């Protein structure tokens, strides 16, 4: 198992939780047909992504399908933060919550990129559900969406295949990998029968077969690294390979928008500022300061 996942399950004591999967947040889902028709190749930097979006906008297609809900704004923000700011920036700001990092010029650049992305969304975006936005990409009404790996289920249900109908690529970053782990927590009990039951459940959950079947349905990848990936689709295989290379290069960062890096209070404090900035014409500098203020207020 990856060291980071391991640590969050036991925190230097006996194990208290069993991880069932690893979700990757920083995916970009793009309609390959639309991209090919407009001569766009998969962007590997944020500048290339902006250029691709400009091309799509000129051709009359909505570049960025986005659901205007607070948690979706935060999901896009953390992918941008990791990509534009870098892995260490992300860890300092959103895991360690350092004030100087939050007020820095890098944060301003992150908000600038968010402002640019806002310009690529359509009018009906506020309030839209995430799967409706995925539907827009599937139908070719929009170019791409930034969403976690659960969006893959929508494509699969619509009968689309990766590489043929759609691209599943990580958003541009430097070997970054935003992860979120779903686990079952086991509460302390002194009843020996219940303890035996807990141990059995944990053993079953960590078994290779359970991990494989569960994740085939859920769209994430197994928390165990030694599960054979033959039955998984290309996106999942890529994710599984990426997590090993990312881990080796220090690019594994916990998602704050999905409750991995921060608790609910801090997540909400960050999310409120992010969604306010996205839905108003707040300047990036003001937003960076508001972000730091919000974090300090909720310390």
């Amino acid at each position, binding site marked *: 198992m990856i060291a980071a996942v391991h640590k969050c399950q036991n925190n230097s004591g006996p194990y208290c939780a069993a991880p069932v999967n690893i979700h990757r947040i920083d995916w970009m889902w793009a309609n390959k047909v639309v991209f090919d028709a407009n001569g766009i190749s998969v962007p590997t930097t944020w500048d290339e992504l902006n250029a691709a979006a400009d091309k799509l906008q000129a051709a009359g297609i909505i570049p960025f399908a986005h659901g*205007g*809900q*607070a948690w979706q704004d935060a999901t896009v923000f953390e992918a941008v933060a990791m990509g534009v700011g870098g892995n260490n920036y992300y860890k300092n700001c959103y895991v360690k919550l350092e004030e100087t990092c939050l007020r820095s010029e890098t944060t301003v650049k992150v908000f600038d990129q968010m402002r640019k992305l806002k310009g690529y969304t*359509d*009018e*009906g*975006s*506020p*309030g839209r559900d995430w799967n409706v936005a995925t539907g827009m990409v599937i139908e070719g009404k929009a170019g791409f969406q930034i969403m976690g790996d659960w969006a893959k289920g929508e494509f699969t249900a619509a009968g689309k295949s990766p590489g043929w109908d759609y691209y599943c690529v990580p958003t541009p970053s430097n070997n970054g990998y935003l992860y979120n782990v779903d686990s079952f927590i086991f509460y302390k009990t002194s009843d020996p029968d219940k303890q035996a039951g807990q141990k059995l459940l944990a053993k079953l959950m960590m078994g290779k077969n359970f991990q494989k079947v569960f994740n085939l349905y859920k769209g994430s990848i197994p928390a165990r690294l030694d599960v054979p990936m033959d039955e998984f689709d290309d996106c999942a295989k890529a994710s599984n390979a990426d997590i090993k290379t990312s881990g080796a290069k220090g690019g594994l960062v916990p998602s704050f928008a999905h409750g991995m890096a921060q*608790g*609910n*209070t801090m997540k*909400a*404090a960050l999310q*409120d500022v992010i*969604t*306010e900035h*996205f*839905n*108003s014409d707040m300047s990036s500098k003001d937003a960076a300061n508001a972000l730091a203020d919000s974090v300090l207020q909720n310390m």
Partner: protein
Amino acid sequence: MAFFLIKNSIKNMFKWLEKNLPKIVLAPAVGLISWFVYGFVLWTFYISFTNSKILPRYELWGVGNYGKLWASHKWLVAVENLFIFTALFLIFCTVIGIILAIFLDQKIRAEGVLRTIYLYPMALSFIVTGTAWKWILNPTLGIQKMFIDWGFESFTFDWLVDREMAIYTVVIAGVWQSAGFVMALFLAGLRSVEDEIVKAAKIDGAGLFTVYWKILIPMMRPVFFTSFVILVHISIKSYDLIVALTQGGPGISTTMPAMYMTQTAFHKSQVALSATSAIMMFMAVSAVIIPYLYSELRRENAS
């Protein structure tokens, strides 16, 4: 002699029962309400003075939460939205309700059918109303798209996605739901006026408009009172309408106190701060209901 005593005591027992049976029957209900409603209100009041985060804690902490609440930007937006929504909701519901009631009072043919149609929205839950209006007001799906398809290329009606105007869409949906209820209240009030008064006014030469404006509407004071109290308390409590229509968005521009309270407790894991906002809402509702109850009881005692 003993038989006489027993008969007397049984009679006394029955008399006692007759006097006290209503109280006995009501006692369980009163007990449950006292505990679950008023007891829990007191619990919330207590919690607002603690430092509870994700689960309640019972050590007293101080009045810090009240300061934190009023320093919170989101709460101030919520309170401002509450004032705007309540004022417009009250005015429009009452005006539209009165006009519909006056029209229906004219002894028209299809009165029963029309009355039902106008009252029907009240039967929907706010979630249904919110969702339907969300689709109708969405610029890419609803009214704006319809007009553009009909050929009015530059027609815009994007209030729902505009931060400044989104609260007014909430007013539209809320008024659509509740105007029928106000209409029903006023229709009942108008119908309860004795015919003699209207006949007397007509004999004196008053036209229809004057009859309504100068005589009947002033007689509707109790109905105004009732509808005011009910509408204000619906407005302060409104949560499901906001959730279904805008989710507090775009950004946080349509958030309201009830939504702030729920999100703070369950999404932000700050139970004490949420309890504080609940007490604020309780005080706002009390400020409306208590004077009303007082004036009603005083009138009862006077008569």
